[in-house]
């Protein structure tokens, strides 16, 4: 359910109206331009015993369009209370294990998209919750790329953390990006978390610039880094699947490149380039990847990277239309809702949780 009026009393009336059981919780996705007084909102929700989990995003997706204001509210049956994973936690922290829970289970996971701790938080969460579970989520944050508390549960709003809830519901996830290699390999010879200091034993920015210029991608003039870089992300190779995309977000000290997402040291990188149509078709591919005719479709949640929206610009709605069309063609009429995220989260077929960039993740929930 999409709501435009995000005043606390309005949100509360929707949440309370829809609330029927303590075994249910709400996914609350807020547009960064429609953020109410979060402390008051969450305090009130907690007082009233309403469980909630979600984040603040650059924009929302609703009815095939990008929406900059409003909120998305979705009700889900829960297997447990919403959880928070923070960097200071360790493996002894209490987090309910779902290893032995059989049947429907899906985890909605929302991370601080600009936090360098997100990869290790995801690893810890994965080790705790287990593999035979479908993960779906993304990175929250603000368009300004200034880090601030952006993920929340009814217990509070957090920075450098991930929040989530485990649903008693089946979901299938499709993941795709459509970016292709144009140059490589380059070796990330010196990195720390999401910062690449050196590529091929030289300052990362110099090598990156040179490579893009060589590929005819344009000339960096000092002020256009983001405009150019959004077209040329890095890719980390993985067997039998698409490369893991790492989006260059800015320039660090001494010619370092700051990425959205961790880049392991000595990882072999390629420079990727996106073609509009390939990206749009990738979205359709992601939508197809989560479809099944075995169960009736309940709802669809799209987590699409803000950088894709920026890259596709006016064509972005085509990407959303392709997703919608993919479901329509299979006679799955459903309202598509989602967020423009700073990083996307999913696990492919019960494998490790990954934090993607410039990727679209489509989650289909079935009854």
């Amino acid at each position, binding site marked *: 359910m999409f709501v435009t009026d995000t005043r606390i009393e309005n949100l509360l009336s929707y949440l309370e109206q829809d609330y029927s059981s303590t075994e249910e919780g709400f996914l609350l996705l807020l547009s960064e331009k429609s953020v109410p007084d979060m402390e008051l909102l969450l305090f009130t929700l907690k007082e009233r015993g309403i469980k909630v989990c979600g984040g603040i995003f650059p924009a929302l997706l609703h009815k095939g369009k990008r929406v900059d204001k409003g909120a998305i509210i979705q009700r889900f049956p829960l297997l447990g209370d919403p959880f928070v994973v923070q960097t200071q936690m360790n493996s002894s922290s209490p987090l309910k294990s779902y*290893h032995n829970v059989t049947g429907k289970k899906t985890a909605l996971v929302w991370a601080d998209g600009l936090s360098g701790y997100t990869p290790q938080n995801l690893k810890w969460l994965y080790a705790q919750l*287990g*593999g035979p579970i479908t993960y779906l989520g993304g990175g929250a944050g603000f368009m300004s790329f200034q880090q601030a508390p952006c993920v929340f549960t009814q217990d509070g709003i957090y920075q450098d953390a991930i929040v989530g809830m485990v649903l008693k519901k089946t979901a299938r996830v499709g993941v795709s990006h459509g970016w292709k290699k144009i140059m490589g*390999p380059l070796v990330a010879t010196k990195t720390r978390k999401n910062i690449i200091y050196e590529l091929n034993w030289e300052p990362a920015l110099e090598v990156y610039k040179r490579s893009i210029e060589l590929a005819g991608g344009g000339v960096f003039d000092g002020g256009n880094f983001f405009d150019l870089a959004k077209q040329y992300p890095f890719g980390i190779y993985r067997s*039998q699947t698409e490369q893991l995309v790492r989006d260059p977000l800015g320039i660090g000290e001494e010619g370092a490149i700051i990425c959205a997402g961790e880049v392991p040291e000595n990882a072999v990188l390629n420079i990727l380039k996106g073609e509009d149509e390939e990206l749009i078709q990738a979205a359709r591919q992601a939508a197809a990847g989560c479809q099944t005719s075995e169960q009736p479709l309940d709802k669809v949640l799209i987590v699409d990277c803000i950088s894709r929206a920026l890259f596709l610009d006016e064509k972005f709605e085509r990407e959303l239309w392709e997703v919608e069309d993919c479901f329509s063609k299979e006679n799955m009429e459903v309202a598509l809702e989602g967020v423009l995220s700073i990083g996307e989260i999913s696990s492919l077929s019960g494998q490790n949780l990954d934090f993607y960039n410039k990727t679209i993740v489509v989650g289909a929930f079935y009854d």
Partner: protein
Amino acid sequence: MQEDIIQDISILYELSLSMGKSMDLEENCHDFLEVLMHRKRISYASVWVCETCLTLKGSNTYSLIYGSPNFYIQERSLSKEELVPDSWATHSYFSFSDDHPDFSRFVVEQNIEQGHFAYIRLDELGYLKLYSNQKSSPFSGVELTKLLNVSQQFTNIIKGCISQQLYKRLLNDSLEKEDKIRKIAKFPEENPNPIIRTNKTGIVEYANFSSNSLLEILGVNKHEPLPDFIRMLILDAWRKKESVTEEISVEGKSWILQISPFPDENFAYLYFNDVSKLKQAHMALKASEMKTRAIINAALDAVISIDQDGRIIEWNQRAKEIFGWEMHEVFGKTISGSIIPEKHREAHSRGMERFMRTGYGPVLNKRIEIEALHKKGHSFPVELAISPIKLSEGGSYIFSAFVRDISVRKEMESKRERLMVELEKANKYLSDFAHVVSHDLKEPLRSISTLASWIQEDHEEFINEEGKEHFSMMVKNIVLMEELIEGVLSYSKLGRSWDQMEDINVGDFLCDMVKGIALPPHISIELSQSFPTVFYHPIHLRQVFQNLLSNAIKYNDKSNGWVRIGVKDKGEYWEFFVADNGRGVEEKYFEKIFQIFQSLDKKKNFESSGIGLSIVKKIIEIYGGRIWVNSELGEGTTFYFSIYKENFLSDSSSL
């Protein structure tokens, strides 16, 4: 094709550089396997290493040293047969999927029911076990072959980490041992005794903390020479090239000094051990021993000790005097052959043997009388007490005996017994004699008395006044003679008859007695207000009071004479008195008046047999009491006597 190769190389490159950043086993496993899992889309990876490699001890088990993610981990220790299919155990790698009949047998993880496993052998170290839940297996032979080289590198790094772990453990063990030894050995600095290191010439190079006070007494600082007498000892040890131990004295303290020279190192260690207290204790012990020895030698009894084989090990001066043997003659010889008469030797051997076997000895720790053998061959009686002394727990015994020669005592006892028999005989003879004499004398007296009466009656007209008076005196003397004989008879019969004794209220008793006395008109008797009850023979008590009263009345020459009877409480006994205001007795007769046949007034015609007070004295003494007299001539006399309050039946010792 070229792209694939480049991608493979890039992954292998990343894998090969992912490890070896440290020597930490877990960190290396994590770094390598994280890259491998992400790049190869592997769901779970684990490393199993045999115990032999981990601990250097033989064992067929394999331990899980790393597994990620941990929600798959279930078993952590397995036998080889449980971990690896036997037929593939020596292969470099192998894989199998859930369609393999033994799939479930080798699922030692939890939450896995289907998928694909791959094993890569890490030399003799163990196995890298991988799991994927992808639909199609990523573990083709080609893919696994690609990983062999980098796996070998991983193996080597793991070996290095394990070796370092073992080395650290061994090093820690070694350090712990060294620490223990250090603590036990107490390095010189911690040693409570002075330890000094000098060079050959005795100049102090090192002195531990405990040496400070000794050096101060010696007046020596570090890097200065020790006193000459110690330097001489150092030179002596140096010359001999061996340790020298000497007792030295410094300021009244005794030290054992051991000097150990190390000529090759050009130094000597001096170890000082303060033995002053030990020496004092030794001297005290020696003094104590000498004192004991002196006591034993001066003892009135012979002190003889023997070991458990019966050999004499102690023989004092008195033993020599009693038995005639010198110490050197008997030391080490058996006691049996020395002082025990032949007839007792077998019993002695049996007793010793029984005690050693059972710990029981009926004659031990008691005073017994027995015959002993003198060096000259004659037997004599001894009294002895034997005490066994255990020298150590479960160890041997010695036996010490105190022996007293009782020959003289025995002789005396024998003589006394003979005398007692003779005395008894004499007493009986005397008693019989007194009885016979008194009886036989009384008969003729009665005849004389009768004949005198007849003569006086038949020839009254022929006898003048003087003759009549002589007859009268003769009759009186006959009566007196009869009384005398009766008294002797009574005296000789006196003795205690316990069965006739009874509680007597003395007050009532005296009142009755006084009533029966025909008092002369000039005499009065005064009794005290109260008298006690005494346990006495009533006839004896009557004899006592009657005799004393009779004397007091008889010898009272006053016109207003009185006799007073009273008693005083003297604690254990009652002190009775009978006082009069008669003519008194001279002090020189105070003892004599109690002797038999002693009457002071025979010449003055008083009717006295001289036996009454003897009888009184004898009665009082029979009951353990005492009688005495106080008197002043012309003023009067007081007799005192004592009677015990308790039933005084046995001891006749006087008060």
